[in-house]
């Protein structure tokens, strides 16, 4: 496997981790509106461990790196987010297996696998006002762009982040049907889902830093 590809995955994990840690308070506040406010704390405790352990993760493939991250996430993050994010990373890792480079089509396949994993784990569907309501439409858009022949990763990532942001904002219109927010009934309408917004923030930061990724 190309060590450049592994370096990019490492770079990506580091960027995600840093964004989650920096946004601990913000993500917690998003969850506090109609949830219980622990989302930022839970994610941060897991991803600060990912950042800490990242140097020691196996270097042989992107899949191995992602799988190691999935393990850290599962073992350190509690609440709903632990199983959800842990499953997502694990499924993505499995789908990355055997790939020399994570080309755009492969990334779409990894996202699809992550989505399927989240759905199985959380029994949520699109429309239930969860992070799926950002991830599914943004993955759809990414797939369309890739199918249309776009291959510049910066362009694709920018588009993905924009789609996540747009869809995350739109979750404000939804009533929560899953998770703690659902207990507030119609009062959950009017504010966006914490998990959806977190995905948008993470992708936006990654897109901003993408030009600084290791040379391939």
């Amino acid at each position: 496997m190309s060590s450049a590809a592994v370096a990019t995955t490492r770079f990506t994990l580091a960027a995600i981790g840093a964004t989650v840690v920096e946004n601990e308070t913000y993500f917690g506040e998003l969850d506090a509106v109609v949830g219980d406010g622990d989302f930022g704390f839970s994610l941060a405790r897991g991803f600060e461990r990912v950042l800490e352990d990242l140097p020691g993760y196996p270097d042989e493939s992107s899949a191995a790196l992602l799988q190691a991250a999935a393990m850290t996430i599962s073992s350190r993050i509690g609440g709903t987010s632990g199983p959800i994010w842990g499953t997502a990373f694990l499924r993505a890792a499995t789908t990355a297996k055997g790939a020399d480079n994570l080309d755009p089509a492969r990334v779409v396949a990894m996202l699809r696998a992550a989505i399927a994993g989240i759905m199985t784990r959380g029994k949520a569907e699109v429309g239930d006002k969860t992070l799926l309501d950002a991830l599914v439409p943004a993955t759809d858009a990414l797939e369309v762009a890739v199918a249309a022949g776009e291959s510049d990763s910066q362009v694709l990532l920018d588009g993905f982040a924009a789609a996540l942001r747009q869809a995350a904002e739109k979750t404000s219109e939804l009533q929560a049907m899953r998770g703690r927010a659902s207990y507030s009934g119609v009062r959950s309408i009017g504010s966006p889902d914490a998990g959806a917004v977190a995905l948008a923030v993470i992708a936006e930061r990654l897109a901003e830093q993408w030009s600084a990724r290791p040379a391939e």
Partner: protein
Amino acid sequence: MKKFVNDPKDFVAEMLQGLALANPDTLVYVPECNLIHRADAPRADRVSVIQGSGSGHEPAHVLTVGPGMLTAACPGDVFAAPPVDYVIETIRRLASPRGVLLLVNNYTGDRMAFEMAQELAEAEGIEVRTLFVDDDVAVQDSLYTVGRRGVAGNFFVMKAVGAAAEAGASLDELVRIGEKVNAATRTMGVALTACTPPAKGTPLFELGDDEIEFGVGIHGEPGRERRVIASADELVGDLVAAVATDLAVTAGDRFALMINGLGGTPISELYLAYGIAHRLLTNRGAAIARSYVGEYCTSLDMAGLSVTIVRLDHEITELLAAPAEIAVRVF
């Protein structure tokens, strides 16, 4: 934020350290997986009864570990279900040939962690059953597909199952008892103030000087309805009406009645509320055979209370009356 806390990240660990230091002979604390278990567990001749959930609900559940109640408690961070790994490790350490019973409050995060852990533990050859508690009548709309929440009523499930386990009941028997008690139990709560998780540092929601949250949960998540503060008679009256209607209280039935403080409510107010609830239920012709007033399942520093009723039969009454020795020492 004004709290007794050092680094908020260490809040749960430092609380558990204190609990272990205060109970050196009876409790064991395993920091690697946030575990508190009876010093004499697991026992080959007893089912191990384990309850997990987020922290911030003390005395639930780390303080209810002991003979006649839980074998172990496996808490997560404040308001967060424990990570799956902690649960698996807990099950492994408490595994008994008679089996392991997991008591889980019905929340998405808790369900996922315990279901995943059960699957893994079974794969390792440990016999595991899980019992979900869902006593909160505030969540009743069928729209909310996640179902009712488990709140203060989990005390009665713990107590009954714990007593039966102590007496040597089988795993099947414990599941039967737990399901029966859960089905006979209803709770509804009201919050006068929001709570402040140490890591957040500010109240989870804003309440005006005269506003309250009706039908609130135990995680500081807002309730079903925001209202204006009213007299104790009115507030407790509405809570009693909600649980009594849902459980179809009729004249001649016998009940246990619990007034549970949510963390910031003085004991005096809890007893005042108890008197109101007791009179309202007996006015309906119900008999109150067992009374519980105090803190059983809290929401950090939230001011508020919940009312729980349990319809009693002979078996439940006996199990509730059985002795228990837990880590809450009052005298």
